[in-house]
């Protein structure tokens, strides 16, 4: 990997079509910086995204990228990483993509613990379809398709991740560029599935979870006594609904990525000793 990569090398010639002020600008810049600062080259980086405002991120980044099916970015990324473990794989998505239509894949990607990072731009709203409730929208959030509020508890993605056996859970805020970049870097460097939920406000459709709201509510875990290696402390922080913590909530330092486990490691790279030539060596058992 080349060491003289700058974060602008990850920028494509396409101007984002996100609304001015969208949190996704900051989220993406942090991702590009984190990739460059961890020594990744755009030729050896693969960005997978789903559908929605977040899904377009592959267009705006100048690496290899795939902009696929709504909610299915994680399984595509899993296939990519298993087939070529040398690539840096980063999956990006939104709260609808990852916690609604794709939530089944999220749980299984967490428990599979493939060494890739997953950055979710959580704006607590469906933006591209013009303002419907998302799974992280508040219970009393009124939208065109939920005129009396959602009347449902919002999903707590970090709690889902922790209960599914996550080995790295972080929360960042798109407008805190330095801290966000740092957290994405830690997710990249983590040996296993590095999950970062990013508060990435929608300035057009969400007038509740705004920049001001997050600025006023955020508590940086670095300013607390939080021990990110403690499962119990992570659980307590994650379940405290009144606080919006940013930082690394949980990291398992003993994490072994899925693709480094016995039977999987190196399997794509080399042909095992005594491998059969083909069917001709196998059909004998049918005599």
């Amino acid at each position, binding site marked *: 990997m080349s060491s003289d990569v700058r974060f602008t090398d990850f920028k494509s010639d396409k101007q984002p079509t996100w609304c001015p002020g969208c949190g996704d600008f900051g989220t993406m810049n942090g991702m590009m910086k984190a990739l460059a600062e961890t020594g990744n080259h755009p030729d050896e980086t693969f960005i997978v995204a789903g559908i929605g405002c977040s899904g377009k991120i592959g267009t705006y980044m*100048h690496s290899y990228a795939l902009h696929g*099916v709504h909610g299915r970015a994680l399984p595509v990324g899993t296939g990519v990483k298993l*087939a070529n473990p040398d690539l840096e794989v980063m999956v990006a998505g939104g709260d609808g993509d990852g916690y609604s239509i794709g939530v089944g894949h999220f749980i299984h990607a967490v428990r599979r613990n493939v060494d890739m990072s997953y950055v979710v731009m959580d704006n607590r709203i469906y933006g591209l379809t013009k303002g419907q409730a998302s799974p992280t929208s508040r219970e009393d959030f009124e939208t065109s398709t939920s005129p009396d509020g959602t009347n449902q508890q919002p999903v707590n993605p970090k709690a889902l991740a922790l209960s599914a056996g996550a080995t790295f859970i972080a929360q960042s805020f798109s407008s805190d560029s330095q801290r966000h970049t740092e957290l994405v870097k830690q997710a990249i460097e983590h040996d296993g599935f590095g999950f970062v939920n990013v508060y990435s406000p929608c300035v057009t459709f969400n007038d509740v979870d705004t920049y001001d709201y997050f600025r006023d509510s955020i508590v940086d875990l670095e300013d607390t006594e939080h021990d990110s290696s403690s499962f119990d402390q992570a659980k307590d922080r994650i379940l405290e609904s009144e606080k919006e913590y940013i930082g690394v909530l949980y990291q398992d330092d003993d994490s072994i990525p899925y693709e480094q486990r016995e039977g999987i490691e190196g399997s794509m790279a080399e042909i095992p000793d005594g491998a059969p030539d083909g069917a001709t060596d196998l059909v004998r058992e049918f005599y």
Partner: protein
Amino acid sequence: MPEKDLIWRIAGGSGDGIDSTSQNFAKALMRSGLNVFTHRHYPSRIRGGHTYVEVRAGNGPTNSRGDGYNFLLTLGDSFARNPGEDAFYGNEETKPLTENLDELNEGGVLVYDEGLLDQEDIEEIELEARAEENDWHVYPVDLRGIAREHGRDVMRNTAGVGVTAALMDIDVSYFEELISENMKADMKEANLDVLSDAYELAQEEIDHTHDWSAPVGDGHDEEQVLLSGSDAISYGALDEGCRFISGYPMTPWTDVFTIMSQNLPKFGGISEQVEDEIAAAALALGASHMGVKAMSGSSGGGFALMSEPLGLAEMTETPVVLVEAMRAGPSTGLPTKPEQGDLEHILYTSQGDSARVVFAPANVEECYTQTRKAFEIAYNYQIPAIVAYDQKLQGELRNVPESFFDEEPNSDPGSVLTEDEIAEAAHHASGKFKRFQHDPEDGSNVSPRSVPGQKDGRFLATGNEHNEVGHISEDPENRVIQMDRRVNKLDDIRAELDDAETSHQTYHGPEDADYGIIAWGSHQDTVFEAVTRMNDNGQSVKAIGVSDLMPLAENELVDFLESVEEAVVVEMNATGQLRGLIQKELGRYGEKMSSLLKYNGNPFEPREIVEGFETSVDGGELPHTRMKYVPAAGD
């Protein structure tokens, strides 16, 4: 009396060892020099329920189930006897006997387990009267008693094989050989003892009233192996360099998934069981995007979930091979029964116009060759390819010369450029590689392909319409160019298939026959057997077996349809989907084609094809309601 094939049916409950016993039975007869074919029928439950396997063995071609069967070994349903489970199974112990009687041919032999079914049961079902009426030869044998003497009731199946060997004059040493090879030490001795006790008892103490026996094998020119369509699909994939599979269990697809999972590690490949079929197809797509030959698959309902990733593969021109193991639908349908009702689903599922390749192999050999071809075409043309087969071909075993598989493997990843070639290839001013180049060289519709990780090959793959470097584009001119390039590949593939030395379509019967039968997929060989028989009886008929469904084998179908007065399209579905496809693609022949349809969960017997054909020629009604006949347009 001309030698007739032995068609041996072993019936019992699921869990009675019907599968393994029948497999060994077929293998023994294959080793004895006969051709063999098995037909499986089983319920969707783990224990109990009506299940049977037929083994057909003869010196001629045995490529299909026969007409009915002539030897019934019924074990009774031992699980229905479990008193603790009465609530679930009810009084079902005689079912493996009664439910099989309708198809037992005249003059047939019947062996039932006297140890399990007592005289009262037998009287209740009036077996004696029915036997007399049909000239059946009934031999009650205490199979359970023989097994029990050597320790375990479940060896009743081995006892049944021993009795069969004695009654049918089959050399018992082939069975001994297989028991010795396959069973662990403790079970081996016991089973060998059960086998010989049963054989001797049937030889010495049973008065043989029937006057026929199993054919004696003429021997094979070369060593044979006994395998299923699922085995052959898996070996075709492995030989064509497939090193990645992802899947989710579903009957009957699970077979290929299992065989691949057991074999891929030997080759350095990966098998992943994932959370659902959407993920299964998406993982395979991701792996293939990296240049690894990858596959996934499912059966009807699971395949429906793959629609979106399948469309993404079409749009991003990512090669991938999917297997669709059809079972009877709609919805959960008949989960363990075969049908060809998914044809339109396979051809058209996913939004937008289809650009995919669909092959439907007819038998074990074609499963191997057409799976290889599916990979080759998918990776050369950057297009998804689907191998469609069904629950029938999935489970039926037949003997194939071992040398059939003596083929060179191919690990060529298809149309992927080297880094040197990428450096020479067209790039956009931004530095992005023209992965979706409008006008690829040589007038081909296949654009140059890089694989992530390669230097300077960066591009975006997206499900949106996109320009040459993959960026989202709604430009009308670009849209038409890209859409045309994707769908026109099918014409190129058709041309390649038409030019190939051997066609995937197969033919049977005299070329100048007056009438035609069109079949596709797994019952093709049954149709061919019927065609032989009809020509022997002086009828003038020939058949085509169609495997290339997308792009459809249009030229061959036109030639065939032009050469006959009328044709019957034989399908295992209720609406004549292939007939519809032919009319749609050829734009004519609606007045020339009638349909013979069967969708009751059981595959065709050769005699049913004959009945259907006669109805089409002579008019009138089918003799029974197991099938449906739909006349040609205007008739």
